[in-house]
Every structure is written in structure tokens, then in C-alpha cells.
């Protein structure tokens, strides 16, 4: 199958970025908006075409989805190791193409309304272009190093976009935090890559992932501290993934990242970039699965499960609607990781993998929808906080409906998208690991609860009056909401297991009714509780908050993780390490160097008395010198 044209998909947004970036001052906002949107439209169309071509026309050869690559050497390291640049087309990359295209396009359209009148309008679209380019590059990457390269690039575009309001100190701090935390994770990722490169002699996904390939078969060749080095490598790589996907304990940047404009949060911190970690694990799934009997994969599963729970608990207590969504994102990402973690490889065994990808897909849709909805709300009431909202359904019907749909979807209410994907994940968990399954179910309940707490809090709740009447957002913003809403409804009906599976052979997925029933009921219960607590204005919630007391406090303070990190960086690294070093350098190292010089001058001060000016002293030294030398050379040195 000819895949060359796919190269255009990343290239177009990049060109957009260059255009808008370089002629930033020259271009009129209106124009730049259109440039951005149409550029992305083109990419999106290509992606859809590519997806159609791959999945339905000629991607499949005798029942197996093929992997097509095109690449060129970018730089040589050693005779065997080199960085390639190229594109790799297989089910998940194509799937990601679609996801990225859809969400990004919607966000572009949405932003034209949301960012209207902002001074950095053009800059904003430029950055969006840069991000989309990097994201495409990431999903199409053919080898570890290429993915690392674009990994860094999405990181930096996220930095730029979080810090978009660069005069706001909080925004600056958030951007810095996001970049440095992920950078720290990438440090692990890089080491992982190094190890893989050194012990397998390649960075290439195809070679690495081949179950019969040497990389996987000889995993036991070298081991370090009881684990195969390859396992170590995978764990390190997972650290990278965990950083991007805000897995515990590297999640702390995600909530703060909400400082960025809401469309950005929707695109980067909900739908696309944050799933990169999941994508990375999926991309290396064969290695994770086969090497050391999936040791690394179990770690992934537990980390995912814990993060899901952890985030869900915190989400209940947050009052900033974007932060609620942020933690919900984290929790859902945990779900995906969990799904991968409990997955097998062959045929129906691989349901976890499939489900996790499926969930990634659906989640992208409804989470983006949620964020955009939240954006439109914020746009209307100029506040992020629940306390400033309530009974908005009267003023902004479309937002209300779409948000409701999204909420239902994420709560896993059939037949909406979330239901299908989440159910599959739970099935996989149930089959592999009961503990994780229970966690998953519980989280499902929590999700439904906090989501509807949010929904009721915004659109129902106390019947308040606004000093300036909030009104429905313009079409440019509501249109994406509608589109995404539709996708959130129908998204679940896609027979995903036909297309995206671990072994690339589709299988027939069918609903496991008991489990589905359980999950659904749990979801309903969550919604019900939320109804009781928040539908009408009442003090139930506060009472319960008091009842839980410290627990509630911890949760609402995110279990003090920010404080811990702050302590480590500010107190330990800056005060205890950096400052002393800087002082040491000036005082000790430099001091020594200066000391040598000063000492020399001092000596010359001390000895100046020898030059006494008395000719007889001179004579004395002269004679003494003669005598000494004579003695030395007569009695010591002469053989």
C-alpha cells in the first residue's frame, strides 16, 4: 500500500506553524485563524482517507493487518545504531492519526471563537500547529529515538501553550513544572532507550516488537540485579510514559497545566498528548508482554490501577472545574494503562490491549467534549470555580446537553461510547487480575459520582443570578461541541476489536452481560448519589465533607504531593545542593586560585628585607653564598 502521502499529514501543520510563527506580526488574526483551521482540515482529511485505505481497502493481508514503513537515516551513531526518520503505519498509529486529527480540528475551530480578540491569537494557532505536527510525528514514529524526538517536541509545545498567558506568574510556574517533571521522566525514557539500543542493537520498532525477533527471544541474555536488562529498559521507558501520561507519582504537573487556555487543555492535556504514554506502552506491547513474562507489564497494570483510584478520589473534592476534569483525565489514563497491563497477546487474550486503545479513542472524544464544554462555561461566567456557577442550563442549552452526554459517556452509561470501552477493560481485568478488577469497578463508580457532581454543580444546583447574564457561546464554539457529542454517542458502536488488536488479527468481541450490568449499576449508583447531593442546593455535601474530615482535607489538598515535590526541589535541591555548590565555587575553588596568587605577592612582601640597601649585607650574602655552595659541592655532591 502506498503510504507516502501520509508524510503530508504532519508536514502541513508544520508549514502552518512556520508561516504563522515567522510572519507573526504581519498576519491579521482572522487570516491566521483560517490558515490554522484549513491546514488542519487538510491533514484531517488525509488522515481519514489513510484510515479508510488502511482498515478497509488494503491494510489487511490474509487476515492480518500489515505494518508499512517508510524511513530514511537521519544520523549515524555506530555501525548498527542510527536514528531514522520515517513513518510507520499500523492499526494503532492510524487510529491515533484519526484521534489527533478529529480533536485537533475541533479544537482549532473552537479556538477561533474562544481566543477571539486575544493579542496572541496568531501565536496561539502557530503553537497549535507545532503541537499537532509533533503529535503526528510521535504517533507515526518508526523507532524509539524518533518517538523520543517528537516526545520532546510535544513536551515543549505543551510548555509553550501552558505558559501562553506568560504574564501570569501561576501560568509560568505551571509551564515550568510541566516541562521539568516530564523532562525528568524523559531522563528515564532516554536511559531506557540507551539500554535497548546497547543490548538489542536497534531502535527499530518492527525489529524490537517481532515476537520471534532476537530482541524478545534473548531477553534473558544479560541481567542486572536479578532482572533482565531489557526489563529494566522497559521500566525506564515506562517512567517516560508515566511522566507524559501523568501516572502516579509523576502526575503533579497535570492539574497545574490547566493554567493554559481551555482549548489547549482539551487538545493536549485530555485527548492527545497525555495518552502518548499509553500509546508508548502499546507501541512496545509485544516487548512488555513477552520479556520476562510480562514483569514490566504487571508494574504498568498496578501503577495504572493505583493512579486511576488516586486521581478519582481527589477529583471528588476539587472545586475548580478544570482541575476536576484534569484528575478525571489522570484517572481515565490510569484505566487505559490498567487495560494494557492486564492484556494478553493472542486473539481474544488481547482484549485488554484492544479495550485500552478503544478507551483511548472514546475518551479522547468525550473528554475533549467535556473540556470544550467547560471552556464554553468559563467563557460565559469568567470563572473556573463551581461556587460561581449553577443552573446554567437556563442560559446555555447546547453546552448543557453536550456536557450531559459527555458526562454520561464517561460514567459508562450504555449505549454511549464510554460504556463499551470501559466495559471491555473491566472484562480484561476480571479475567486476569481480580484485585485490579475491583479497583476498576470502584473507580467507575467514583467517576460517575464526581462527574455528575460537576455537571449538577454547573448546570443545576443553586439558582443564582449573574451580574452580567451568561449567554450561549457562538457557533464556532458550539459546533465542535455538537460534533464531539455525536462522536461520544456513536463512538462506542465501532467494532474496534476488528481493527486494533495486539496481534493485529481482529477478533469478535461480545458483551459480557454480568460484568456490564455490574459496571453500569455502579455507574448509576454514582450518578444517583451525585443527584442526591448536588441536584438541589443543600448542605449534605458539606456535612459529609466534615464527616470525612481529615481524609477530605488530604484529598482536596491532593494528598500534599505538590508540597512534597516543592520541598524536594526548593528546600533540598536549591537550598541544600545548588546554593552550597555556588558558594563553594566562589569561596573554595576560586578562593584557592586567588589564594595562590595572593600568597606569591605576600611572599615577595616578606622577603623584601633581604634587599636591605647595605652594601655590606650584599657582600655578606655573596660570601655566604660562595661558602655554602662550596661546602655543598665539596662535601655533598662530589662523588
Amino acid at each position, binding site marked *: 500500500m502506498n503510504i507516502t502521502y501520509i508524510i503530508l499529514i504532519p508536514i502541513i501543520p508544520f508549514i502552518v506553524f512556520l508561516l504563522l510563527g515567522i510572519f507573526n506580526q504581519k498576519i491579521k488574526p482572522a487570516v491566521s485563524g483560517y490558515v490554522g483551521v484549513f491546514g488542519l482540515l487538510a491533514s484531517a482529511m488525509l488522515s481519514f482517507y489513510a484510515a479508510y485505505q488502511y482498515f478497509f481497502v488494503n491494510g489487511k493481508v490474509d487476515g492480518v493487518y500489515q505494518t508499512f514503513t517508510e524511513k530514511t537515516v537521519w544520523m549515524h551513531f555506530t555501525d548498527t545504531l542510527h536514528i531514522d526518520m520515517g513513518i510507520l503505519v499500523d492499526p494503532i498509529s492510524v487510529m491515533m492519526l484519526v484521534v489527533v486529527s478529529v480533536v485537533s480540528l475541533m479544537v482549532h475551530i473552537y479556538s477561533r471563537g474562544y481566543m477571539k480578540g486575544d493579542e496572541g491569537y496568531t501565536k496561539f494557532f502557530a503553537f497549535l500547529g507545532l503541537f499537532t505536527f509533533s503529535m503526528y510525528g510521535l504517533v507515526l514514529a518508526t523507532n524509539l529515538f524518533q518517538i523520543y524526538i517528537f516526545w520532546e517536541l510535544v513536551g515543549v509545545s505543551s510548555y509553550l501553550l501552558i505558559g501562553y498567558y506568560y504574564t501570569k506568574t501561576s501560568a509560568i510556574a505551571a509551564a*515550568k513544572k510541566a516541562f521539568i517533571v516530564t523532562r525528568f521522566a524523559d531522563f528515564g525514557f532516554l536511559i531506557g532507550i540507551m539500554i535497548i539500543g546497547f543490548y538489542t542493537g536497534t531502535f527499530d520498532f518492527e525489529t524490537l516488537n517481532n515476537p520471534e525477533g532476537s530482541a524478545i527471544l534473548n531477553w534473558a541474555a544479560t541481567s542486572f540485579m536479578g532482572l533482565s536488562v531489557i526489563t529494566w529498559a522497559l521500566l525506564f521507558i515506562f517512567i517516560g510514559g508515566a511522566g507524559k501520561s501523568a501516572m502516579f507519582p509523576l502526575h503533579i504537573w497535570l492539574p497545574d497545566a490547566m493554567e493554559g487556555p481551555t482549548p489547549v487543555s482539551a487538545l493536549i492535556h485530555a485527548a492527545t498528548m497525555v495518552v502518548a504514554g499509553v500509546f508508548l506502552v502499546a507501541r512496545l506491547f509485544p516487548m512488555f508482554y513477552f520479556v520476562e513474562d510480562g514483569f514490566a507489564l504487571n508494574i504498568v497494570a498496578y501503577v495504572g490501577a493505583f493512579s486511576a483510584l488516586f486521581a478519582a478520589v481527589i477529583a471528588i473534592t476539587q472545586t475548580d472545574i478544570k482541575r476536576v476534569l484534569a484528575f478525571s483525565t489522570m484517572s481515565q489514563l490510569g484505566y487505559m494503562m490498567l487495560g494494557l497491563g492486564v492484556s494478553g497477546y493472542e486473539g481474544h487474550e488481547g482484549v485488554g490491549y484492544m479495550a485500552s486503545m478503544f478507551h483511548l479513542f472514546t475518551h479522547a472524544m468525550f473528554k475533549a467534549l467535556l473540556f470544550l464544554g467547560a471552556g464554553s462555561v468559563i467563557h460565559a461566567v469568567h470563572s473556573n470555580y463551581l461556587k460561581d456557577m449553577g443552573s446554567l442550563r437556563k442560559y446555555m442549552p447546547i453546552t448543557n446537553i453536550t456536557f450531559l452526554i459527555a458526562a454520561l459517556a464517561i460514567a459508562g452509561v450504555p449505549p454511549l461510547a464510554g460504556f463499551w470501552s470501559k466495559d471491555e477493560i473491566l472484562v480484561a481485568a476480571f479475567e486476569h487480575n481480580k484485585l485490579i478488577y475491583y479497583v476498576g469497578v470502584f473507580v467507575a463508580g467514583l467517576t460517575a459520582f464526581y462527574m455528575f457532581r460537576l455537571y449538577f454543580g454547573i448546570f443545576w444546583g443553586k439558582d443564582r443570578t449573574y451580574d452580567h447574564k451568561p449567554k450561549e457561546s457562538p457557533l464556532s464554539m458550539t459546533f465542535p461541541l455538537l460534533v464531539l457529542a455525536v462522536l461520544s454517542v456513536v463512538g462506542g458502536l465501532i467494532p474496534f476489536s476488528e481493527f486494533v488488536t495486539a496481534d493485529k488479527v481482529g477478533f469478535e468481541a461480545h458483551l459480557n452481560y454480568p460484568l456490564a450490568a455490574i459496571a453500569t449499576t455502579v455507574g448509576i449508583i454514582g450518578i444517583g448519589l451525585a443527584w442526591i447531593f448536588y441536584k438541589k442546593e443543600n448542605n449534605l455535601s458539606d456535612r459529609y465533607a466534615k464527616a470525612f474530615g481529615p481524609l477530605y482535607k488530604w484529598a482536596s489538598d491532593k494528598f500534599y504531593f505538590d508540597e512534597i515535590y516543592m520541598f524536594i526541589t526548593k528546600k533540598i*535541591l536549591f537550598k541544600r545542593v*545548588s546554593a552550597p555548590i555556588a558558594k563553594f565555587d566562589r569561596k573554595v575553588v576560586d578562593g584557592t586560585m586567588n589564594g595562590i596568587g595572593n600568597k606569591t605577592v605576600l611572599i615577595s612582601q616578606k622577603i623584601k628585607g633581604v634587599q636591605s640597601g647595605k652594601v655590606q649585607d650584599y657582600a655578606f650574602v655573596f660570601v655566604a653564598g660562595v661558602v655554602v655552595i662550596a661546602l655543598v659541592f665539596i662535601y655533598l655532591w662530589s662523588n
Partner: protein
Amino acid sequence: MDILSLFIIVPVVTILFLVFAKSLKQARMVAMVGSLVQLGMAINLVFAYLKERTVNDSIMVFTKDVVWFEPFNIHYNIGVDGISVALLLLTAIVVLAGVFISWKMYDLPKEFFISLIVLSIGVYGFFISIDLFTMFVFFEIAVIPMYLLIGIWGSGPREYSAMKLTLMLMGASAILLVGILGIYFNSDVDGGALTFNILEIAQVNIPVEVQKLFFPLTFIGFAVIGALFPFHTWSPDGHASAPTAVSMLHAGVLMKLGGYGVFRVAMYLLPEGAVDWSWIFIILSVVGVIYGAFSAIKQTDLKYINAYSSVSHLGLVLFALLMLNKTAWNGAILQSLSHGFMTALFFALIGMIYERTHTRDITRLGGLLKVIPFISVIYVIAGLASLGLPGFSGFVAEMNIFVGAFQQEDMFMRVATVLSISVIVITAVYILRVVGIMLMGPVKNESYLKLEKVTWYEKFGILLLLIPIVGIGVAPLWLSDMILESLDPFIKGLL
């Protein structure tokens, strides 16, 4: 006249013209034309080299060998390989940029440009020499003008910094001299004549104990100018006091002499010594890498930040050289180049900011993105480049270094490698700190609201440096391959 000697002659001619320059206008005109010609020659040399390489596979091409001091068998012996070609190009670009940046050098312009060009002569000569003696001569020629440049046109405690810098570097070169003499007098152990010719000495197998004796002298002698911990302290003060163009040339080019010399002389001529001593110097360089980065975090003076980041980056160069394999060495050279461009760019920008705001204290600056967008944006880009973002030269270099270092099996090397990789995080911290405090945030000082926009010559200087950074970062293949093939003989000398 052969293509290489021109690199000495053209600057000399430029100086002769400069002597008769009457005013700033004339002086900078002459200097600009001169350095433009040099840049032209450098670019031409690259293509000439690539062409020559296809037909000529000797280690050095365009060689020219004239007997100088016959009794000592000292020759004026020059030639280039891919490495020197790359570094020559770097030099030419930075010099030209430096001339543009010092467009408004009102105080003694003529003398300023003369010293600047004398410095460049030293650097060019150093990069093209094959003869140890010639190399050493050019080395000192390159160092001494710094005294005047910093002392006369500097700021702050310029006399102190200038003196310190000169003495430390000259002291180092003095140690180096002993090393060179040691090599020279052992260059006849195989029965040949005493010689200073690097290529010939490389063929001689110098006794191991001799190598052990002279490697540290040679290494330290060069490494001090490469800001080896703990001999780096001249660089922060020197940079802080130096005028913009000088900081650019110094950090951008002069400090590269260190790595290059270590590689060409210490490593190539005393391989066993290198293997024997590497552990201690690896420790020092890794310490330098981490240490420089950490001290950069706490600085508030822009130039100090940059100086310490140079210590950290060049620590990586030495570290890579000590890893003794092709990939790492390739990384070292690339790092030298990319750091050259980046740090020159940084100093240029710092100079511009200082010129406008009259302070280099980041705590007193703020929100510059609003008032001088162009400079600020470039600063951000330079910052991203220096924290090793893909798409910029820094990434290419660092990845080569890390991958190369990772080829070393044993635990000690692994630990050192991981430690040095960890610098990518710390670098991010101090770079983003500066960006956050200085460029972003609200405008701290009302008077900054009407700062002079960037001028054409400043733009020119900036772009001159930015283009190669991006160029190497986006398409490193031709450059890294050119260097790689030049590395082969050195590797063979090592194994």
C-alpha cells in the same frame, strides 16, 4: 598560495588595513569585510574538502609543509580533516557575528578589532596546525589578546578578571609546554628523528610510562581552557567582565581549543596514557558537568549563568573525549560546534539586553517578551537549544555523547554516563528559570516599556548564529558523517 595559509594571511592583511583606519566607521567596515572574506573562505573550504575527500583518503588534506627551525625539526606544517574544517567554519561565523555585535564600539575601535582579529588568527592557526610547535605558538597567540580585550573594553572588575584569565590560561599552556617537550624528546624512540609532527609521532609507539607521565600534563594544559573542573574559575569572571563580542569569541571559539587539543594531542599521541588516566579525568569532567549546571541554577547574573552552563556543556565534551570511542568523540566535536554557536548566540543576546536595560541581574528584569519580542524569542529558542531540544544542534551532540558513552560496558562508566545524562534535567531547570523570570511575567520596570527595538546588524549577527544551530539540528547527517570518517584514523591509533 595554498587554501589554508590564507586563513592566516587574510586576517593579517585585515590588520594591516585596520592600522590605517581612521574612525569607527572605517574600522568596522574593514573588520566586517575581512571577516566576511574569511567566512567565504571557510564555506568554500568545506566544499573543497568534501570534494577533495572523495579522491584523497590521507588523514589530513590540503597539507603544506615548510621547514621552519631546521635544527629542531620544527615545521610550519598545516592540513585539515573534517573536524578542523567544521571548527574553522564555526570560527569564521562567530568572528563575523562578533564584528556585527560590536558595531558600536566607540572606545578605541581600531585596537579592538585588531585584537579581535589577532585572536582569530591564533584560533585559525591552531585548528590547521599539524606541527605541535606551530600549534602551541598559535595557542598562545589566541590567548594573549584576551588580556587587552577584557582589560580595556571590559566592564566590572575587568582588570582582575583579565589578569586572572590570562594567568590561568598561560599557566596551563606552560604546563602544556612541558608535556609537548616530553612528547618531542620521546618521538625518536623508534629510531626516527625527533619531530613535532603530530602525524609522525602518532606512528611512534611512545613507552607507556612516558605516556603516563606526560598525558596528565598535556591533558590539563589543554583542558583548563576547556573549563575543566576545578580549573574553570577563570571563565565565569572572564565572561562576566568581557565585552559582548569577546565573550562570544571566547566561549564560542577559544574554549573549543581545549577539547580539540586534548583530542588531537593528548588522546591521539598518548593513547595508553589516556586509558591509564581516564578514570580520574572522567570523575573530574562528570563533576564539572553536574556542578556547573547546579551552580548555574543559583546565579542571578546572566553572564554567570551562561558561563557556568558553558562549564557544564564543555564538561560533556571532555567527558565524551574520555569515553574513547567514535560515537562519543563525534558527539564531543558536535557538542563543541553546537555549544560554540549557542553560547555565542547567548552572549550576543545578553549583550543586547544589557545594552538596553543596563543590567544583567535577572531579578531586576522581567516581561521582556512584551518589550523586546525579537530578542526574547531568540533567547527562548537559544535556551531550548541549549537544553537539548530535538531540532537543534544541542540534541544531536548530546545524543551522540550519551549513546557513545553508553557503549562502555563497565559499571563505573555506566554510573558516570547516567550521572552526566541527568544533566538534561538540571539544564532544563536553570534555562526555564531564566526564561520564566526574565522574559515572562509582568514588566518589572516602567522604563523598559520603551526599549530600542533590535537593529539590523544585531539581527544579522543573531541569524548568522541561529541558522547553523537549526541547520545542524534538523539535518545532522552530512556533518556527523564528515566528522565520523575523519575520526577513523584516531580510533585506529587508539586501538
